């Protein structure tokens, strides 16, 4: 069963760009050959590490978003472990989180419709008219961005 994972790893800072690309391509190869799908490859660039790892104080962060089953992830992790330039990695399962976010988003959209109803009622009340209109106008852009 394929799940969505984020694999973030740190490559030692003294690796040149071409080598880094080759390394990443190699890991992508292990995923695709195992039947997984690469969703996204992101180079987060060179960052200072929060603590010293194998005597390095900074490293190249790379983020892979993959859709794969457990066997592929296990294999990828094994490769990451034995690949000498990789100094640290973390695999995080994301599909449950995505599901939760989708649910929240759906709920929020449903909720918005209900909150739009009082706006239709508001013009009927003459005294309270200017205030609700202003507040609704202020709310809407904020909700659009959220």
């Amino acid at each position, binding site marked *: 069963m394929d799940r969505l994972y984020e694999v973030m790893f*740190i490559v030692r800072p003294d690796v040149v760009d071409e080598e880094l690309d080759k390394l990443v391509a190699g890991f992508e190869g292990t995923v695709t050959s195992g039947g997984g799908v690469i969703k996204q490859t992101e180079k987060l660039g060179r*960052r200072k590490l*929060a603590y010293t790892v194998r005597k390095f104080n900074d490293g190249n962060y790379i983020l892979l978003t993959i859709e794969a089953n457990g066997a592929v992830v296990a294999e990828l992790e094994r490769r990451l472990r034995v690949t000498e330039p990789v100094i*640290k990695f*973390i695999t*995080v399962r994301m599909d449950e989180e995505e599901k939760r976010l989708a649910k*929240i988003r759906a709920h929020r959209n449903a909720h918005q419709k209900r909150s739009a109803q009082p706006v239709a009622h508001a013009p009927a009340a003459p005294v309270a008219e200017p205030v609700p209109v202003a507040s609704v106008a202020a709310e809407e852009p904020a909700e659009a961005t*959220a």
Partner: protein
Amino acid sequence: MSDETSVKAPETGSGSGAPSGQSGESRPSGGYQGNRPAGGPRPAGGGPGGRGKFFRRKKVCKFCTEKIDAIPYRDVRLLQGFVAERGKIVPRRLTGVCTTHQRRLTRAIKQARNIALLPFAARH
């Protein structure tokens, strides 16, 4: 919204009149319900230090109010706000984050520590 104000008014009245022991006693119930508006002022008033007895700031969960759904471990800028100088996770009673979000926040901070985005302990 009208609920909040009606709850808050008697709460501040009893809070100023009642001894600190009482507010401490009812704190767990406030904390249990996350960022319930009435739960916010209590910890600040009946806090462990006991200082600023009448200074009560309403604390609300940043993630609830700003509608931040996901707390990604990659967002160092966000997580840094909930980590003390030495790298410790700041407790909920100080930040006002609700239970649910504190749990997610804790997980994100621990993941970030693992990949060297945040320190386990700041060096000195």
